[in-house]
């Protein structure tokens, strides 16, 4: 018996080896959710999905977990790295964090933002970009194809924080983001929203939030393709005010209206994290219950970081009968503040009227600056903060770069002092958008920096106005990044098995986007061309007619005629009587002899008849032409 079993086992293992041996590195998928109470009584939920595909020799034609659509996109347009984000709402840098990994990666400008690096010769980058925008707009049901025109994208050199000459960047601030963009995004996940953590994405609760940003980041790494999809939502838990200044308590089901009933079976790892910041006694919080708050489920692991505590939950154990419904109940009032970026950026318009204006970017020091700058840079004994500003101007905002002024602490500064590097590519009318990259080096003790630049508003061709031209035109967000500041969570433990945390452990550039500006342009009356045509034509016709009449005038004859007529009744009176007669349709009651009156009336009626026929003929011709089509 044993003799027969062993060869069978060998055979079986051999067959298994054949079956699985063909692709040793398999496609991998993992899902995670990070929850974080925010200081302003809101809750942040960050869904993160990671999909890895090994490099294959089938040129992306056969897939098991990795979405076919994305890999075909990569193959077709030779994308090396790409990020697409759909955002509604504005990230509140003061309350939700400015310098941690979460905010520097996921705080995105309003609307659609797309950047991509291509692996093609430099001359073909623009073509690839155009094709990619079209493909993505079909894939995500969005008007990303508007980024195709060369007036709407730019090629940043160093200001974007990623230097490559094959990089293209574009954004559509006006794009409305809704569930029709989320559904195709979910289709790329193997479990969609049917199972696992993504089942929490109840559309009404996601879109009721204060901020939501769905992001898709694709990169070619040594181990193949890496597709990261994340959805960041800031939600307000429903609470009744109880008089005490407690933070609101919440649970997954109260936030989303759904529960997690098990992991996505295809996911390699499936975790929920809870990040708590600013706790009074971090050491004491490894427990399920403490005096400050209470968790409904015991965390599987607890990690401690310099400023926060991270509870890790594994949702493997949950099932239909026992759903995973994490809840957090506060027992004591708690207050904390988030890590801030060194400078807080905002942007506004100056000036009035439809002719010219100025754009100002204001950088204000935040509380955290001293702490950060102290350890960051000491440049020749002086503490310095570096900041990069990257801004795209549409061509119809004609910026005068010589008017660039920098005020440091409300003192106008000669540019060379703080402005270390500047790169400007001016816009060309209807050809390309303008771009400005600036590197500022500011003293650490700076309170505020204002950058202003003047512009003239251009005129668009009548065809170039969007349907709602009177709403105004958007200037895309400026990107402020701090090249010497990096955000990362500093864990002591080795976390390579947890994709989200290992991502957080990597250093990422601290960056923040400013507001979108709305510039009202002179909008024409869109029926104007026809009005202009009509009025000029009428004037010309009048001129032409009077000129012709003047040419044909016989002055001598008229004088003779007037002389002979002067004895008669006044011209005006006769004209009036004629007019009334015409209206009444009766012959002119002339005091003169009968036969002449009769003759006159017959002449009159024939002329009248002729005119009526003429008008009727013109009307008929018009009718014929207009109904011909």
């Amino acid at each position: 018996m044993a003799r027969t079993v062993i060869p069978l086992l060998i055979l079986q293992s051999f067959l298994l080896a054949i079956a699985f041996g063909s692709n040793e590195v398999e496609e991998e998928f993992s899902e995670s959710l990070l929850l974080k109470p925010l200081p302003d009584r809101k809750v942040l939920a960050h869904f993160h999905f990671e999909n890895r595909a090994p490099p294959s020799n089938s040129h992306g034609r056969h897939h098991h977990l990795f979405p076919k659509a994305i890999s075909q996109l990569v193959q077709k347009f030779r994308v090396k790295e790409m990020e697409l984000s759909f955002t509604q709402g504005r990230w509140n840098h003061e309350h939700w964090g400015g310098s941690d990994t979460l905010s520097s990666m996921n705080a995105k400008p309003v609307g659609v933002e797309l950047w991509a690096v291509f692996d093609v010769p430099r001359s073909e980058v623009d073509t690839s970009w155009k094709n990619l925008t079209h493909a993505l707009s079909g894939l995500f049901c969005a008007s990303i194809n508007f980024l195709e025109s060369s007036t709407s994208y730019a090629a940043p050199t160093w200001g974007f924080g990623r230097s490559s000459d094959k990089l293209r960047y574009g954004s559509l601030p006006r794009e409305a983001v809704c569930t029709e963009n989320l559904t195709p995004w979910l289709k790329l996940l193997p479990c969609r929203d049917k199972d696992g953590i993504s089942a929490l994405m109840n559309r009404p609760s996601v879109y009721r939030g204060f901020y939501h940003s769905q992001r898709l980041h694709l990169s070619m790494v040594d181990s193949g393709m890496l597709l990261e999809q994340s959805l960041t939502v800031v939600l307000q838990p429903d609470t009744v005010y109880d008089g005490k200044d407690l933070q609101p308590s919440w649970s997954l089901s109260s936030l989303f209206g759904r529960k997690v009933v098990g992991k996505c079976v295809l996911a390699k790892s499936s975790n929920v994290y809870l990040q708590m910041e600013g706790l009074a006694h971090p050491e004491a919080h490894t427990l399920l219950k403490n005096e400050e708050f209470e968790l409904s489920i015991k965390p599987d692991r607890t990690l401690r970081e310099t400023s926060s505590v991270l509870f890790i939950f594994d949702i493997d154990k949950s099932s239909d009968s026992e759903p995973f419904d994490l809840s957090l109940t506060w027992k004591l009032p708690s207050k904390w503040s988030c890590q801030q970026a060194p400078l807080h950026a905002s942007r506004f318009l100056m000036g009035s009227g439809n002719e010219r204006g100025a754009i100002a970017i204001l950088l204000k020091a935040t509380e955290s600056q001293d702490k950060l700058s102290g350890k960051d840079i000491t440049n020749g004994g002086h503490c310095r903060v570096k900041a990069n500003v990257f801004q795209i101007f549409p061509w119809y905002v004609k910026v005068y770069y010589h008017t660039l002024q920098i005020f440091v602490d409300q003192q106008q500064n000669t540019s060379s002092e703080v402005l270390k590097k500047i790169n400007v590519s001016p816009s060309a009318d209807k050809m390309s958008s303008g771009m400005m990259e600036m590197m500022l080096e500011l003293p650490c003790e700076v309170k505020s920096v204002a950058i202003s630049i003047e512009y003239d508003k251009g005129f668009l061709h009548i065809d170039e106005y969007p349907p709602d031209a009177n709403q105004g035109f958007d200037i895309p967000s400026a990107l402020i990044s701090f090249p010497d500041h990096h955000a990362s969570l500093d864990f002591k433990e080795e976390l390579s098995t947890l994709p989200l945390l290992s991502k957080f452990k990597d250093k990422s550039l601290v960056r923040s986007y400013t507001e979108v500006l709305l510039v009202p342009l002179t909008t024409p009356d869109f029926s104007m061309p026809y009005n202009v045509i009509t009025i000029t034509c009428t004037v010309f016709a009048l001129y032409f007619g009077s000129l012709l009449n003047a040419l044909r005038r016989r002055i001598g004859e008229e004088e003779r005629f007037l002389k002979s007529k002067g004895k008669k009744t006044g011209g005006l009176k006769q004209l009036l009587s004629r007019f009334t007669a015409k209206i009444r349709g009766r012959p002119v009651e002339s005091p003169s002899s009968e036969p002449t009156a009769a003759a006159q009336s017959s002449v009159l009626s024939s002329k009248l008849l002729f005119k009526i026929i003429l008008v009727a003929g013109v009307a008929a011709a018009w009718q014929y032409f207009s109904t011909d089509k």
Partner: protein
Amino acid sequence: MEETSDHPNPTTSTPGTTPEPDPKTMRSSKPGLKRLLITTTVLFSFLSGLPFLWKSVEIYRSQLPFHDIDSLSDQIKSTPLRFPCTFHALFIGFRSNDPDQLRSEIQDGVNQLTGESSQCGSCNVSISVTVQSPDELCSETFPSTCSYRCGVIKRDAFGGGLDDEVDESLDDVFGGCSGGIGKMYSVVVVNKEEGDGGDEVKAVVGKRRHAWIVGSGLEERYGEVVGRVSEVFVKVFMNGGREEGDSIRGEFMPVGSDGRLVLSFSLLNSNPRDWIYDWDFQRIDEGLLAPVTKALAPIADISVESQVLYHTPKSSFSSWDEKLQSYIFRTSDLPFFVNSNEWHLDTSAGASGRSKILQFVVYIPSGKECPLHLQLPNGEISKTNGFISPMWGSVIVWNPRNCDKDSESPSRNMISPQDLEQIVEVFLGQFRQLFGFKSEAIYTSELGSYKILPSERGFTEWELDVLSRKHTCFNLHSCATTLGSLSRLVQSLPRMIIKDEIGEQVKYSLKAAKLAQSNASLGGYSSSASSSREARSLAENAFFHPSIMSVSYFSYEHCFAVYSPFFLPVAGHVVLAALREWKRYKQEKAKYLTWLTRKKTA
């Protein structure tokens, strides 16, 4: 001037009595021409400017060859495209038959079967017959199309061994046949000696372009044999074993208008919580599908891709059948089987433009509905457990070996290579059906049944010939109709801009169509197929050119609205002025003439 004529006569003039002429009726000076000249000059310059204006508002329209388009579609409608085919019949072991007589009889049979209605893509038949008597003497019809060496096929040795080997040997025998123009098809009829095979007649159609009928005592059943030979020629070699009245199939050629076809294979795990199956499609693609796509290369440019999807329930319900111990879905449920909400099969980004995508779906039922079987209308269980949907693709339901749910956490299983091969075999059958062929290896007609040897490439050579004939025909048809619609559209919208590019495309499309027609008449199957493909894709490109789609053409209304505010009043002034001056000139001239006559008489 009207006023002057209107003016009531104050005094009753007495003509002739006074030397001063009455200004009402006559004048002494010659009327001046100045004003008349001015107004007529203005009028004429105005009129002569009109052609320039007309020219300036003219929109650019590339000249389309309307006449050629019409003649092409007329030609295709009136004379269906026919390819030259040579049929060669070889009778072995027949004593007393005159080949010429046989030929005319076969010709009659062929004519009877094809009937009057000559379908597009059928054959222009030429038949040759060789008869080999039992003592290996040959007589053949003239002109000889094939250099069959007499006696190569032995009457008694023939048909021994496997059918595949016979097919190979026949290919050697007829290897030297050029077949003149077009393809050559041959049928070998072997009359065995009495007694060794009984009365049975065996008819086989090979993988190449040969068929053979073997039996004993065939000479006595001579009429039947001739009937069967002509049947093989017409029904199998010419029509590919399709049913008559299947001509509509030609419209359903599943090839995109750019000549490309994407085969998208999807493995659907309807509920991955019960079990997860995966496949190694890469191997299938390389091993089993590559020969098929290669064989079909002249007809379509085929690419293959695969994916695995999860959480994809079907949208129809199935019921438990106690007797069969399985869940059943019926043929009436099939229209609702494909769940387009949940099966995000996705149009492929690899398929650009107008290429066609065929979806091949393997559906793995969930634990709640396992095993799942398709019940045919006659109550039997379908053997393939799958169905096709023309122009969309096909679905196969694959039940796991063991319908018991995996324990707590489902593991990822691989479909075993044997199972996968079976699935692919069903796929190939369905693929053949989508192209209009039968999936069985037997063709039955009134006179008997024929065994059809399946090719490992999915399609036999004669089937590929049928496909290229039909495909050429279909492409030319669709090219002609597309160009016809384009020309009608263009003619119905006289103010639509037509770019040069469209004109070029139409021109090249017509050229390619002409080339395809001439190639077809010369018997170049693959060349005519490829040029007809080109013709169709160019025609479609012209029709779907983005500039045709744009709405902003310069309409008459627009023209009228822009120009009438100027030209209507000005034209009124100019024309009226000229008319009045002319009238006045005539009046004054009459006055002058009366004065002249008066003067003369006076």
